[in-house]
């Protein structure tokens, strides 16, 4: 069954011989990727759970401890965690309306991030930004509610790094839907033209809300669009953290060395609805069932265990530690105070 129009998800699962890869990829990274995936998934699960508090039975988007739209990234963990081990202090990331997995992988303060999602004064933006507008200075993270908006910003960060003589890189995450927004084209051309240290990472989950990729994109692979800018384009076809690790590693190295931008497309899975509350009626039960079978939170630790990289006990311990960290962050968020109403007037200007 085809989850993506042109590739069977999981078909390339065997592509990486872990034994061989293990020689290149430090075991620590393989394990750390799992630990971060566990943190992400549990965070998303907790947020989801809390999101529905006081919103039901008749779903009211404005009610509950976490109101507003909520775009969760369950299934897309591999994209974020495969990039993370290659980052250095000072690197910049721009992400999308579905930002949690990336922010968590980059190491954005989990408590302040959760607090922002709860609209609390201890949040990253003192409650002004919310889930789609998480901004962190160290590490440098930003996201936005407008499709494609972060791509030019990443170019600018990269331009600053270049001008400042730093070997930092900027990473821009965006969905396959965003790849049809003008900003994609302009940004990739600019990055290639100016040889900027940017890596563009397309999270192809096959869907832009209810619109499947084949109804939005004239060709099968956005990675093929890299040739329109003379930059390398790489496809990671199987939502595999290791595939992302390899592709991102090469692209980030390239960027750090002053050899310019790259485009990586990762076929990933949006396990849940576009946003919470989405009935997800445009995807069949069969489709959802097959997605569940390819859930990276199942398949990746299985592989680690099967290939002898980690023991079940290690995996359990990592999972538990991840949960504890998330629970603590959520507890911090919950117990934090709301900003004072009139604080709404602050921070328009510096």
């Amino acid at each position, binding site marked *: 069954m085809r989850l993506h129009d042109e590739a069977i998800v999981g078909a390339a699962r065997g592509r990486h011989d872990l034994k061989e890869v293990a020689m290149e990829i430090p075991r620590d990274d393989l394990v750390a990727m799992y630990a971060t995936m566990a943190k992400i998934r549990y965070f998303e699960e907790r947020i989801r759970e809390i999101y529905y508090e006081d919103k039901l039975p*008749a*779903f*009211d*988007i*404005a*009610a509950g401890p976490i*109101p*507003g*739209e909520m775009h969760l990234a369950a299934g897309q963990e591999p994209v974020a965690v495969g990039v993370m081990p290659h980052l250095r202090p000072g690197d910049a990331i721009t992400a999308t309306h579905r930002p949690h997995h990336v922010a968590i992988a980059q190491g954005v303060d989990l408590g302040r991030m959760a607090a*922002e999602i709860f*609209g*609390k004064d201890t*949040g990253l*933006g*003192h*409650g*002004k*930004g*919310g*889930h*789609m*507008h998480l901004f962190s200075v160290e590490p440098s993270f930003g996201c*936005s*509610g*407008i*499709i*494609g908006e972060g791509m030019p910003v990443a170019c600018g960060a990269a331009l600053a790094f270049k001008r400042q003589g730093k070997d930092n890189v900027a990473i821009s995450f965006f969905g396959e*839907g*965003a790849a*049809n*927004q*003008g*900003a994609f084209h302009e940004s990739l051309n600019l990055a290639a033209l100016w040889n900027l240290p940017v890596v563009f990472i397309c999270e192809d989950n096959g869907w*832009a*809300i*209810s*619109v499947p990729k084949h*109804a*939005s*994109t004239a060709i099968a692979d956005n990675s093929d669009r890299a040739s329109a800018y003379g930059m390398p384009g790489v496809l990671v076809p199987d939502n595999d953290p290791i595939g992302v690790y390899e592709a991102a590693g090469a692209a980030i190295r390239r960027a750090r060395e002053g050899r310019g931008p790259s485009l990586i497309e990762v076929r990933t899975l949006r396990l849940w609805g576009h946003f919470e*509350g989405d009935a997800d*009626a*445009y995807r069949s039960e069969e489709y959802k069932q097959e997605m569940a079978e390819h859930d990276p939170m199942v398949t990746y630790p299985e592989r680690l265990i099967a290939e002898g990289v980690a023991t079940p006990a290690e995996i359990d311990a990592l999972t538990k530690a991840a949960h504890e960290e998330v629970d603590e962050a959520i507890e911090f968020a919950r117990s934090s105070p*709301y*900003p*004072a*109403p*009139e*604080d*709404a*007037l602050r921070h*328009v200007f510096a």
Partner: protein
Amino acid sequence: MTATMTERKLTMQKAIAEAIRQEMERDESVFVMGEDVGVYGGIFGATEGLLDRFGPDRVIDTPISETAFIGAAVGAAIHGMRPIAELMFVDFFGVCMDQIYNNMAKIHYFSGGAVKVPMVLTTAVGGGYSDAGQHSQTLWGTFAHLPGMKVVVPSSAYDAKGLMISAIRDDNPVVYMFHKGALGLGWMTHNPHATGPVPEEPYAVPIGKAEVVREGTDVTVVTIGLSVHRAIDAAETLDAEGISVEVLDLRSLVPLDREAIVESVKKTHRLLVVDEDYRSFGMTGEVITTAIEGAFDFLDAPPIRIAEPDVPIPYSRPLERFVLPGVDDIVAGVRGLVAA
């Protein structure tokens, strides 16, 4: 509300979808495009049921390419079609405004009247449910400032249907804004005002005519969109205090029914303008200036305004509540005006 009344009640959302459906049935040249207008039925339900009824040739899901598909609506409109293009949230206008304000709105003028651009741009506006600063704006002031497009904002299900039908039949580009909080969506906080009587048969509500939705003698409250409901609720409260409030629902900003504003102010001698858009350089200043131009000598007190205080809409509930006009704000404003 002048057309025949019927007991059938619809939410504003259903009224919009019905209007589009009826016009599509009547006129082959009408079609819809936008993100998620097909199987999803529009994120806010404006195109609910249309895909099933008319198929994917007339109800077209688009890529996230607002410049391309809104520009394509312009091209199709020039060539004999009557497209309805949906910009999912008005907040996204920044990625495609050139096609809207410089192209859609100006071609008729540039061509000296030779080329017509009969299209409707539908878009969702408004906050109040913690969707933060890129998904909660109304921005109608921005559209109304730029010439060449009509701008309508219904506040009732009845008007929603009638104004949509007028918009589709209009030979000019019409920006049709629906306030999310007034649609009566199942997943938004229940709004009793969102449901109202809507005749089955097609009817047109004229674009450019404001409506006195509540008569009063002491103060005129001029507003639009969801704030009409806020103003009515405030008026009920004030009634109990013996203050009689007239509520004028502008219904469209372009054309602006200046006569209706002036007439009401001449009657009540006091004006409060309520706007969910940013305060400065927007609707409140325009309405107040209109009153000054037309009824200066009738004013017993300087008009006042309640609007979003020129900050991006914040996410957190207490912050957002603080910046959006509330019923209490209107009550307090009217009291102050009467005391002045």
